[in-house]
Structure formats: structure tokens, C-alpha cells
């Protein structure tokens, strides 16, 4: 899978132009491969992808963050909608959405209190620690996670795992611009 997952393209020559798509898909064998294959062969660039069953286990909800640089946004939605197992697809505009992402990190923690200081600002917690290392967990808006990650870096960021964002339309948001009545 293409895309960068270690922060918002800090070393990239251009800022990525990220759009969020939410798809409800049938929870069937191979669906993720169909979506990944479609993105790959159409040249769409996946930035992050999160998938898990909905309240109805027959369906999964997929949140795909796409770097749409040089890509027609409506093409992405229309091509996804052609997959038989995709029930519907909509674009979530960041201003109309609530977003969250979870991060687990193994950080240097000789000074554990200092680490706790940083992550408590983001509602994070220490899940495990030794004399010189800690595993911390932070769940926040992805932009805030980027900031938290930068603040943890000086401690020594030994292992970083982020989940990719999930998002829901905000309660007072209007209907999607690229909603495909499928």
C-alpha cells in the first residue's frame, strides 16, 4: 500500500491534500483487497485506512484518507461505488466531521514524569513502563497526535504505531457533497 503514515509529510516537498472517505462495505472475504487493488490500479494514493465491523456485523465501515494531489476527488468516490461489495461511499469534510486516531508509542522514559506531562495534555496514558522506557497510548484528533508525536520525539521514540484516522460526520453537518446514493 502506498502512502506515508509517519506524520503529515514533514519531509515531503508538498503538503498532502487529504480527503476523508467513509465507506460502508459488505463484511466479506477479499473486500479490503478489492479496495486496495482499486486504489493501486487507478493511481489513488491512500494516506491511511481504518476498517472494522459496524454495529451490524454483516457490514464494515472503512475510513480512507486519500492524498488527492493530482486526483479528481469525485473519481475516487465513483470508482469505489462501482465495487459490488461497497454499499455506499461519502466524503467527510474535516470541517464537518469529528476525527480521532489512536497512537501507541514506546518512548525513552528515564524521566517518566516528563513523559506523563506531555501525554496528559492530550489525555494519554502510560500502559507499561520499565526504568528507562514506557509504552504510552494517546487518542486524539490526528493533527493533535502529530503535535504530541513531535513533543515525544526528544525522549527517544523507539516504536511508533498509529491506527490511521476514523471519522464520523458531525451531528449538525449538512449532507455530503459526494454522496453516492448507491
Amino acid at each position, binding site marked *: 500500500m502506498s502512502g506515508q503514515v509517519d506524520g503529515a509529510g514533514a519531509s515531503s516537498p508538498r503538503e498532502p491534500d487529504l480527503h476523508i472517505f467513509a465507506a460502508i462495505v459488505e463484511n466479506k472475504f477479499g473486500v479490503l483487497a478489492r479496495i486496495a487493488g482499486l486504489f493501486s*490500479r487507478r493511481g489513488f494514493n491512500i494516506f491511511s485506512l481504518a476498517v472494522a465491523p459496524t454495529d451490524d456485523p454483516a457490514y464494515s465501515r472503512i475510513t480512507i484518507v486519500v492524498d488527492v494531489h493530482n486526483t479528481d476527488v469525485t473519481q475516487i468516490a465513483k470508482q469505489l461505488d462501482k465495487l459490488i461489495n461497497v454499499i455506499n461511499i461519502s466524503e467527510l469534510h474535516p470541517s464537518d466531521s469529528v476525527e480521532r486516531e489512536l497512537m501507541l508509542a514506546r518512548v525513552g522514559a528515564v524521566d517518566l514524569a516528563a513523559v506523563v506531562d506531555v501525554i496528559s495534555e492530550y489525555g494519554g496514558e502510560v500502559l507499561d513502563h520499565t526504568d528507562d522506557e514506557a509504552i504510552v497510548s494517546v487518542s486524539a484528533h490526528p493533527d493533535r497526535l502529530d503535535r504530541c508525536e513531535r513533543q515525544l520525539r526528544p525522549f527517544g521514540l523507539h516504536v511508533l504505531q498509529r491506527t490511521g484516522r476514523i471519522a464520523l460526520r458531525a451531528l449538525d453537518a449538512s449532507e455530503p457533497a459526494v454522496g453516492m446514493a448507491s
Partner: protein
Amino acid sequence: MELTGAQALMRSLEMSGVEVMFGLPGGAILPVYDPVLDSPIRHVLVRHEQGAGHMAQGYAHVTGKPGVAMVTSGPAATNIVTPLCDAFMDSIPLVVVTGQVAMSAIGSDAFQECDTTGITMAVTKHNYLVTDAADIPRIVAEAFHIATTGRPGPVLIDLPKDISNEMMTWYWPDGVELPGYQPRSSVDPAAIAEAAALIRTAQRPVIYAGGGLLKARAAEALRELAEMCDIHVVTTLMARGVFPDRHPLCLGMPGMHGNYSAVTAMQQADLLINLGARFDDRVTGNPAHFAPGAKVIHVDIDPAEHGKVRVPDVAIAGDARLAVEALIAALRPADGSDTTAAMADRSAWKSTISGWQEQYPLQYDQPSGGHPLKPQYVVEQLRDHTPDDTIVVAGVGQHQMWASQYWKFDYPYTWVNSGGLGTMGFAVPAAIGAKVGQPDRTVWAVDGDGCFQMTAQELISASAENIPVKVAILNNAYLGMVRQWQELFYAERYSEVYLSADHPDYVGWAEAMGCAGIRVESAEEVVPAITKANSIDDRPVVIDFRVDTEEKVYPMVPAGGSNDDIILGPEGDADAVLKGSAPS
């Protein structure tokens, strides 16, 4: 009623209306080949699995019904990937069944195992791996529904051997339930009204007729619209025959090897009415320079085609026939008066077009004395000495372009070829499939010598099954289209394109496969050979037409160039070389 999965599969095919299937048995599909013996479905045994797929395509092209092929696992499945991709590109409805190793062996690199659903995901509209025999009727019903509705395309069903042997209780579903697949055919009246307004005011309109019109059975509606509005029509490679070539409003084929009038009318149009075409690069040339002054109405059943290449001014998503009929209704005056009276004055445009037609017809020169024999002359003589409703099937290359250019297609569904994928070797098996679908019609494959060598073995299938197709090989001893590009764009450095006119001995080969073989070396022999071929109906016929190796396809727009830079003939070659754009 208890059936094996294999019996349920055959029963499901019967319930889906299948009359003919093309295939070749092998290990993993063996259980299904046993009930084939008891089924009313005719099975045509092929010699190579690629042949099964292309036969199913030819059958689908000329009947409008889905083509069905069945092969075993592993190498058989990979051999049918090319026809799947071809059908995907040209929106041909196919249902292909492949055998698979037993469920318990999947993932173990078992004998003749391959990840068929994984491999074909990118070249099918949808595919299935059957994991429970009880699912077979539902999956088959869904497969035919998906293949034939919306934008048609190929669907593959991968059937593990143990599932074929498993018992299930027979049922046939009342319908299909596919919440993620709701193809829309009806058209938006507001978009139709907008399109009608553009058509009324356009001064230089052109109808850009694509293969979608054939899929939608819309030839009659198209003719009514064109005549009512007095608008010229170009028919793309996939749409040849949807509008009669002899009709005064027909401009013929546009694109890289389109004729000058079709190409230039599109370039200079102020309105393109795209009905079921997809702005393929072989039509547009460099899209940035394509029809720069034209507004675009784009009718396509696949909304993803809207804006994929060219952003339309009016997008109409839906069935092409319904869209054309809605346009006719919107444009026809309520008082029964002449529709064109309510439209912009187009007399200047019409006289410009007829000027082009007069000045720049398709042309070639067949020297007297018969040598060298020109391929265009062969196509014209074939056209003139075969029934009007003859089905013509081409491979891919120069011969395909000459066939498309010089045949006069006056009926829909008389032209079968591989457009999008450009599959060499398509003609022989597709012609066999077409003849199976339309046994009372004359079917001629117009093939190249390079193409013929790729799939000729299917003529053995045709002989064995008594399917009397006729094949005209335009034998120029080269991979001719590649040779043409090397001549024009690679300074005549001919790299690996010479095939020899004599090896193989096509007449001897044809006879060895149970066909009649005829060799033609001069213009004088052409008509007698065609007449003889037409008189043979108890076996296939192959004519080896020895044609001029240096003849090139013109007009030509160099790949990636602007359609304004169309080269009309050999005198324009120097320009082409100068342009030297990297062709693709």
C-alpha cells in the same frame, strides 16, 4: 432435490438461459464436466482456454446474450485472464467458471492451484470464490445479473473441487439481493432538458456514437435522433454499424486512424454529443488538444466515465437508449413541425463537412497488373462479394483498421473486434463464437498473419464442431502495425517484426486443421477466391492473401499528438518523423 455442487452449477446455468458454453476440462473442474453430458447446454470444446474466452465474447457481441466459458484451475485460469480483461475493457457480458483446488488445499501451493480471484480482481466486474455448495444458485444468479446489467462486463466464479462434490438442496432464487449494486438506467429529466437546449443552439454539433449504444440496443433511436436533428454522426471502433456507413449523415470512424472528416468535425465542433463512448485516447489523441471549442454532452451508464477524461457540460447517467429517446421527446416540437426549424442555422457547417468529405476521402491505389496486392482492395472486394449482413471479426493491427475503414457497416452487431485491450489473436476464436451465436449468417474473420499465428488452433475446434467460419489473412509477412511505427517513428529500424510470408504455409496449415485453404497473390485472384470460399459451407475456409508489406494505415494521428496534426497519406510521413513524439 439433493444435487451435487457440480449438478447445481449446470442446473443454475440452464436456469440462467445459457444455451452454449465454451470450455476445456481439467482436474479441478472434472466434477462439473460429468453433468455436462446430461445438460441440454451445447458445449464447444476449445483447444486453448484463451479461445474459450474469446469465443464467449464473439457470441456475446452478436447475440447480446452473456457469453459463458468454463475451464479448470491454475494454468487454465491464467489462460483466460486475457479474454476477461478484453471483456472488461470493452464491456462485454461474460460469465466464466473456473475450477479451483479443494478448499482444504487452498493456500498450500497445491497442484494447478493459483489465486484466481486475486488475479482476476482487476479485470472483472466482480468475482466469487464459492465456499459452500448451497451458495451456487444464488451466486450464478448474481453473476448473470451483474454481467448483463448496468455497464456490462465479465464475472468470474471460482469453484473448488470439493464444493463441486458437496451435496446441496436445490433451489432457484426469486431474484438477487445486492445492496451495493443498484445500476441506474433511467435518466434525469433536468439533464435531458439542458442537453436539448445545447443541441438546439449548437452551430457545429457532432454525435460521437460509442459502443454503449450497441449495448443498449439503441441503433434505431440513434438514427431517429440524428435524422430528426440533422446532425452528423461519427461511429467509434466499438460502435461501427450502430449507424449505417452509407447514411448521408455518417462520417465514419474517428480517432488515430479515423478518416479526415470524422476527426476534423470533432476537432472543430462546438458541441459533442457523446452517446456511450468514453473519450478513449485512440479517439482523442492528446486530450488537452481534443475538440477544444466543444461543449460536451456525455451519456454513459457508468457515472465514473463522466469527467474521467473530459469534464462534460451536461452529464447524463443512464441507459443510452432511454437517454436518446428522452432527447428525441424533448427536441420534437409538440405541433409536429420540422425539428430543425427550431435549431440554429447549420448550413455553413454542413457545407464545410461535405467539402472535407469530397476533398479528403479514404484512399489507396491498387496498381493495375495486380501487383502488389493492396490489403484495402481485399477488404473492399470481400465487402462487395459477401452478403450485406455478413459479420466481420477482426484481430488487432493494420488489418483491423483497414477492415473498419473500408467495410461499409450498415447493420448493428455485424462488427466484432477487440477495441480497448487490443488483443492480437482475438479474431479466429471470436469469429467462431459469433458463428455459434448466429449460425445462419456468414462470418468472416479479417485477420493479420501475426494475429492468426496466436490463436489459429481454434480452427481445429471449428472443424471438429462443424462451425464453418471464413478467415481472410491479410498476410504482409510482418507485424505490420509495429513495422509501420518503426518506419515512421524509429527511422526505419525494423526490430523483430519480420514474420515471413511463407512460414508457416498457411494453406497447408489450414488443411491440416480440417479447413479449406486458398492462396491469393494477385488482384485478379481475389474475387474468384472469395466466391469459392463463399461456396464452401461444410468446413472453415482460410484464404492467405499475400498483400503489400509496405502498405500503411492512413490517415494517422501520431500517438500523443493533437488530432489537428492528422497525416493523410505517405506524403505526410516526413512530418510524422519530425514530430517524433514518443508513441505509446
